[in-house]
């Protein structure tokens, strides 16, 4: 099955790359650009959440750091776009390292709320500092070429997808992550250094988010703490990944497409959408956790698997019914 999926991914990428040649309406192009952006955010969140078992509720901070770095370097220092975005991704990586050091030692639940708190700290900083423009935000030099941004988002997202596919599904790294997720103490006895591997996963999750943030900033030409460093970015990425299916790469992609399609449709028909959207997001998360723990993709796999046992290998966060424990010596 994985090979087929990979083939589909390549086809989809090719199709998406061809879209601007056929579709000339910039509205649709912009919608697709944003959809692709969310795919990247959802799959990068899943690297740490589904594969490693650590929920980063501050994921949006990496996005925001990338955005602000790009904005500051381009706006105040006149850096060219690619360099500024690269700098943003470096900052995101550093931030992941700094934030990860104390927090990845904690259990997954603490980590979730600690990262959430740290992300709010980042937002606070942006609100206070002058260089970030405070609550009023920042403007970037305008560059009105929708095709450029579409290809920028698409190429980054596709690159990230295939890189993660390689690292997580083919190369040993993904296996190591899952081992640590399932049984960290046991993994240590097999030669794995959990602290180091978790930090690597964290940085792997953060860097692309930073790049995407940088592209976003230049694309939208205006960013502010509320929209770029607020909870909503993380909230949506979380819903997309959880609803789509944790621990896989296809799950978050699916979740991103479905949720984003819903949001776009919704937005066109409801004016007060922001608040209602929040309710729906929350309800969707709660619903997924209770009724759809493996997400859309996981459920699809369960239903269509010929050997229902094997599909369990795809269930990322499953706890097993333990065999009766032997009493301690």
């Amino acid at each position, binding site marked *: 099955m994985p090979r087929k999926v990979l083939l589909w991914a390549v086809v989809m990428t090719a199709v998406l790359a061809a879209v601007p040649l056929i579709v000339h309406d910039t509205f649709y192009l912009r919608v697709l650009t944003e959809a692709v952006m969310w795919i990247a955010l959802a799959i990068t969140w899943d690297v740490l959440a589904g594969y490693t078992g650590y929920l980063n509720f501050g994921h949006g901070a990496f996005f925001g750091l990338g955005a602000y770095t790009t904005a500051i370097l381009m706006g105040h220092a006149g850096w060219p776009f690619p360099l500024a975005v690269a700098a943003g991704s470096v900052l995101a990586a550093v931030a992941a390292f700094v934030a990860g050091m104390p927090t990845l030692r904690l259990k997954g639940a603490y980590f979730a709320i600690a990262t959430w708190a740290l992300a709010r700290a980042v937002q606070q900083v942006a609100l206070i500092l002058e260089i970030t423009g405070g609550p009023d935000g920042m403007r970037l030099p305008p560059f009105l070429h929708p095709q450029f941004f579409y290809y920028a988002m698409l190429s980054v997202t596709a690159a990230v997808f295939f890189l993660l596919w390689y690292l997580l599904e083919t190369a*040993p790294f993904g296996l190591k992550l899952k081992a640590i997720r*399932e049984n960290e103490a046991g993994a240590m006895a097999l030669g794995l250094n959990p602290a180091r591997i978790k930090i690597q996963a964290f940085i792997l999750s953060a860097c692309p988010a930073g790049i995407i943030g940088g592209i976003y900033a230049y694309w939208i030409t205006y960013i502010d703490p509320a929209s770029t460093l607020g909870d909503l970015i993380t909230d949506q990425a979380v819903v997309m990944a959880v609803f789509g299916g944790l621990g896989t790469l296809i799950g978050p992609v699916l979740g991103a497409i479905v949720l984003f399609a819903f949001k776009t449709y919704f937005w066109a028909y409801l004016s007060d959408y922001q608040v209602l959207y929040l309710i729906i997001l929350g309800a969707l998360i709660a619903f997924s956790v209770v009724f759809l723990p493996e997400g859309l993709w996981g459920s699809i796999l369960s239903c269509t698997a010929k050997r229902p046992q094997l599909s369990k290998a795809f269930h*990322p966060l499953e706890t097993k019914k333990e065999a009766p424990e032997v009493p301690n010596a």
Partner: protein
Amino acid sequence: MPDAMLRVDSVSKVFGGLHAVDAVSFTVAPQEIVGLIGPNGAGKTTLFNLISGYYRPTRGRVFFREKDITGLAPYTLARLGIGRTFQIVKPFGGLTVLDNVVVAALLKHPRRQDAERHAWEVLEFTGLADRARDPAASLTLAGRKRLEISKALALEPSLLLLDEVVAGLNPTEADRTVQLILGVRARGLTIVIVEHIMRVIMNISDRVVVLNYGQKIAEGDPKEVAKNRAVIEAYLGESVA
């Protein structure tokens, strides 16, 4: 005298006021099978944790091939050649049986293909090859214990620490495991085994070390130790299987 594979030198572990392990010393020669026995709560698993890097000794030192390994992390020890199984077996449930072993095989075979090949070999040796593609969570207790051993073996260790790999198995499964352990030793490994089941320990150990309340109370040939007064008293009430 040849270098001891493992030398435990007056090792103690104190939790609060409790001496879980109290000044225990013993040596293990290469390719020996040493049995570690004692009543419940004697400190056997704690001692294992001390040797395999999960606890740091309060006092004393541990030497592996005359190299001081006291306080080193478990993953460093794995690299140096110490493998261990855990008493409470927790396989990587979300992974297949094969992948469980591959994780361990990656230590000495960093490339996935090589690691998989090595993992298959190990599974053939331990008799789990037919379950390789099944989720680890689907194994019975016997299978899981066998998987534990497979994972430790895939590290290609020189010293293997087995913690209660036979307990909880029915006699047939237990005998199979004993054969496996002897086969492992035949491949050149040194083994320290903690076990409750007297029949197993007495039959396969070259030497036996007895702990009680964290202290070593006897050491030597299994038959001699079985007649030791202090040992019998420690086990008073416990039936010798």
